[in-house]
């Protein structure tokens, strides 16, 4: 399931809602707003997204995970709007009969969504606002999953 929302989420509630016929492993990843990146403290982070395309790309990524691994259930929640350090940004939950599929698919989902879901972060530090630049390390992290699929 995919949810794109402004509201916060409760990881415990979301894990408890995961369901399947034969779940032996549940893996979750929670992304938070850092308090600093380099030397300057971050005051806030505002996430902009492309309504419509965001949901479409997240659903495609989720479908790809189900194609690659035997998954019982998955959930991706991504927030948008203004967030502060410590706030939750993104949640990925995967459930499978065995741990390896749940662990690998969770890493795949977060790596892929970082490079293909249309979100943009605006960071506020002191009196300045800057759009976060894409990192080549994120591209490399996503790329390693495409090599595995060949």
């Amino acid at each position, binding site marked *: 399931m995919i949810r794109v929302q402004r509201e916060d989420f409760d990881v415990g509630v979301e894990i408890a809602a995961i369901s399947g016929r034969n779940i032996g492993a549940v893996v979750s990843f929670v*992304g938070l707003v850092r308090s600093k990146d380099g030397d300057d403290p971050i005051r806030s982070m505002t*996430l*902009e*997204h*492309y309504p*419509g*395309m965001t949901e*479409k790309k997240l659903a495609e990524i989720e479908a790809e995970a189900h194609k690659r691994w035997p998954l019982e259930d998955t959930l991706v929640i*991504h927030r948008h709007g203004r967030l502060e350090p410590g706030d939750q*940004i*993104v949640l990925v939950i995967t459930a499978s009969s065995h741990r390896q599929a749940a662990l690998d698919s969770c890493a795949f989902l*977060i790596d892929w*969504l*970082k*490079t*293909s*879901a*249309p*979100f*943009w*972060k*605006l960071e506020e530090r002191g009196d300045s606002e800057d*759009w*976060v*630049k*894409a990192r080549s390390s*994120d591209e490399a992290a996503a790329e390693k999953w495409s090599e595995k699929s060949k």
Partner: protein
Amino acid sequence: MKLLYFAWLRHKIGTGEEDIPLPDGVSTVGALAHWLKTRGPGYGEALEDLSIVRFAVNQEFADLDQPVAEGDEVAIFPPVTGG
């Protein structure tokens, strides 16, 4: 056609969305970007370096040679930074 701009492209162009008729002689994303540059200084600045800009046509990522047609939704934005 519907044009959408996100993140710093939206700031530089000064709007997030506009509807325009398909410009004469424009049949690809690249030609559209080239045409948009001539519309004003904000557009020129936003689209100066196309290597740092990404495109989507009808909500699918698109290259500069991707065709565009009347009625398409074309979005222009920086590389994504979610997660």
